[in-house]
């Protein structure tokens, strides 16, 4: 996963193509052409929704995969950004709703999410493993109950409704096709940012301090600060996803950031795999498809059992999620094609 340092620098274009890889180009083309064959439902409810959850899980993947910090509070961060959109933008719950334009609201929301994430990081960065999970879970739960009971700021249980995506450039961005491309665009930016981050000095140092914090400290790195900054970046990604989520639902209430949702993010990341930023998106697609269509397969009474069994099977067969599964299959397939000749 970690890249060896390339000594002689090749030309920029070469490295760029090499970095991106033909597979990702093909995937991008497929994603761009997807609206041509998909119905509106599949465009937003599956496509857009998967991309949004993929981004939230991506922020977790960045923390957990590169930094070894499993945070269950990423949905809280995303939800906070959503709440900011409701509070500073427009809503029809007659609480707050300052009606500021989207180009003011969105940066505020994303920045608040980043700061909130950094704060969560500051609280939990000195802990390891299960303790990080416990602290962040506690924060997520506390925030859930706080939003539920606080009426002055978060409008309690009903939350905010009637939140509209912006009209901009003559397009209403919640229409199926624009919304899908919006999600795709933001997701690609987040994905590329994480990929870039992983290969930057910052990301390499992060992976190093995941593997051996004591050594990194001895080398003069400020481990805690480094982790907190990572939390801030992850918060920005989760915040962007939160903004899209609130535009998608048109509403936000404490249920959106409940413990179930927090666990959902973790499930997505685990199902997808945490070795590569594509994992969370794969996981999100699988989880969203399962949660939408399991009810058609086994009926209303037991569909959650089917979902659970499916997830259990994936984790049982491949502890690294779908990515790990692929990693196991790939060598076999390679050999197969070798045997069959050119």
């Amino acid at each position, binding site marked *: 996963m970690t890249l060896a340092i390339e000594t002689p620098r090749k030309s920029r274009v070469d490295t760029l193509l090499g970095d991106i890889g*033909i*597979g990702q180009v*093909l*995937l991008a083309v*497929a994603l761009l052409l*997807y609206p041509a*064959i*998909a*119905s*509106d*439902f*599949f465009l937003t*409810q*599956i496509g857009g929704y998967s991309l949004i959850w993929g981004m939230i899980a991506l922020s977790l993947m960045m923390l957990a995969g590169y930094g070894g910090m499993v945070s269950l509070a990423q949905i809280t961060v995303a939800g906070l950004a959503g709440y900011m959109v409701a509070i500073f933008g427009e809503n029809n719950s007659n609480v707050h709703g300052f009606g500021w334009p989207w180009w003011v609201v969105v940066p505020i929301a994303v920045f608040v999410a980043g700061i909130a994430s950094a704060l969560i990081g500051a609280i939990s960065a000195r802990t390891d493993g299960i303790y990080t999970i416990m602290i962040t879970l506690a924060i997520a739960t506390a925030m859930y*109950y706080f939003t*539920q*009971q606080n*009426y002055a700021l978060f409008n*309690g*249980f*009903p*939350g905010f*409704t*009637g939140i509209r995506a912006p009209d901009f450039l003559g397009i209403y961005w919640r229409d199926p096709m624009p919304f899908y491309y919006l999600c795709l665009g933001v997701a690609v930016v987040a994905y590329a940012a994480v990929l870039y981050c992983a290969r930057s000095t910052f990301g390499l140092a992060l992976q190093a301090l995941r593997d051996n914090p004591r050594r990194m400290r001895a080398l003069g790195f400020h481990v805690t600060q480094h982790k907190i900054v990572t939390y801030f970046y992850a918060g920005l990604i989760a915040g962007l996803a939160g903004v899209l989520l609130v535009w998608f*639902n*048109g*509403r936000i*209430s404490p*249920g*959106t950031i*409940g413990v*179930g949702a927090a666990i959902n993010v973790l499930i997505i990341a685990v199902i997808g795999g945490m070795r590569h930023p594509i994992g969370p998106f794969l996981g999100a697609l699988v989880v969203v*498809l399962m949660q*939408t269509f399991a*009810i058609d397969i086994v*009926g*209303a*009474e037991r*569909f*959650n059992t089917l979902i659970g069994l499916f997830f259990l099977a994936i984790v049982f067969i491949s502890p690294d999620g779908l990515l790990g599964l*692929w990693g196991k299959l*790939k060598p076999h*397939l390679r050999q197969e*094609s070798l045997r069959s000749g050119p």
Partner: protein
Amino acid sequence: MHIHRRTLLALALATGLTAPSLALAEDTIKLGILATFEGAFTVLGEDGMRGAMLAIEEANGMAGGKKIEIVKGSSDASPDSAVRAVRKLVEQDGVKVVVGPLSGDEGIAVKDYAKTQPDVTFINGTSAAQDTTLRDPAENFFRFSTDGAQWMAGLGTYAFNEKGYKKVATVAEDYSFPYTQVFGFMAEFCKAGGTVPSKSWVPIGNKDYSSVIAAIPDDVDAIYVALGGADGVNFLTQYQQAGGEAPLIGGSITVDQTVLSSKGKMRDVVIGTPSAGPIADTNDTPEWLAFVEAYKKQPDAFPSPSLFAHGYYINTKAAILALDEVGGDVSDGGKKFREALSKLSFDTPTGKVSLDKNRNAVADMYLTEVSEGADGNLYNKLVKVVSQVNQTLGIPEEEFLALGAVSRENPSCP
């Protein structure tokens, strides 16, 4: 390379499979049923489903000469999940008639969604928040079950006049349905001259009520409790343990079988608790008894139908009756169907039901009181039937709207 071709193929397959399925044949009609099949209200959602199935079986699975094809949607009682589920029913499964959802805030969310789908007809399940139909209603959202304030009809007056309670504290869950219930109770109780010095709102699933109990004033004559399921039992138990002795007044889903089967000291306090709702277990009209008998034939049915089975039954029945009237024809965007619905008036196991101009039901309500039966078991004795309660509780609409939207603070009469 293999990988990517495969990925593409998989993607293409996934999307191909998922294009909206066309109606198989002209002689079936799709009926979407949205209920809570997951989360805390699963048991209630399943009972709602029994009610809906009962109505469909009564019609031999046919509506307007077409075979009914049921498509189920599941939510976990949160508005987000309800909208997601109903979106799938409408946008993916191509359902033109939806029955549901089950709980208060879900109803408001589905109503908001209904406005974006003018060609689809939404008929409520048991969701009972007032503003689903009273304020800013959707043209294509119908409610043949009643709202939580209507369910309280007669209770406030009864508590004040017959029971002699002048000062009552309320304890209720913190969301739109209990707000509506408290509103319905206080509308009458305050008008009769009673006062409510303290209102406590607790989150759903609350376990520790000690701070709530401590906040209840000592000099109240009774406590109005609108808590559902385990919350109600937890509160009552802790209230007893804390030495509380004030009698109780129950919301529509408070005094259920778990409370009635309580033992010991709690039992003495529960006896004499009045409550009100859209059904009464001990209703002895032949229509109700026939309904109970039919209900019991459903798989895993309760000894007596809950108000969720009742609500889904009534609403599904209304959908079928109106479909019969238009010959199952919803090809005109459901216009004729909705017209038939708004004019519909029919006899249910609990009396006549018709709609007002906001497409909300006018129906009979049942005032009950917990009594001890001859066999020593507690049961909800039917005290009286309040006939044909409308959404404004008999108050002129202008005056009723002036009372303001239900919320934690409204109404207030300390």
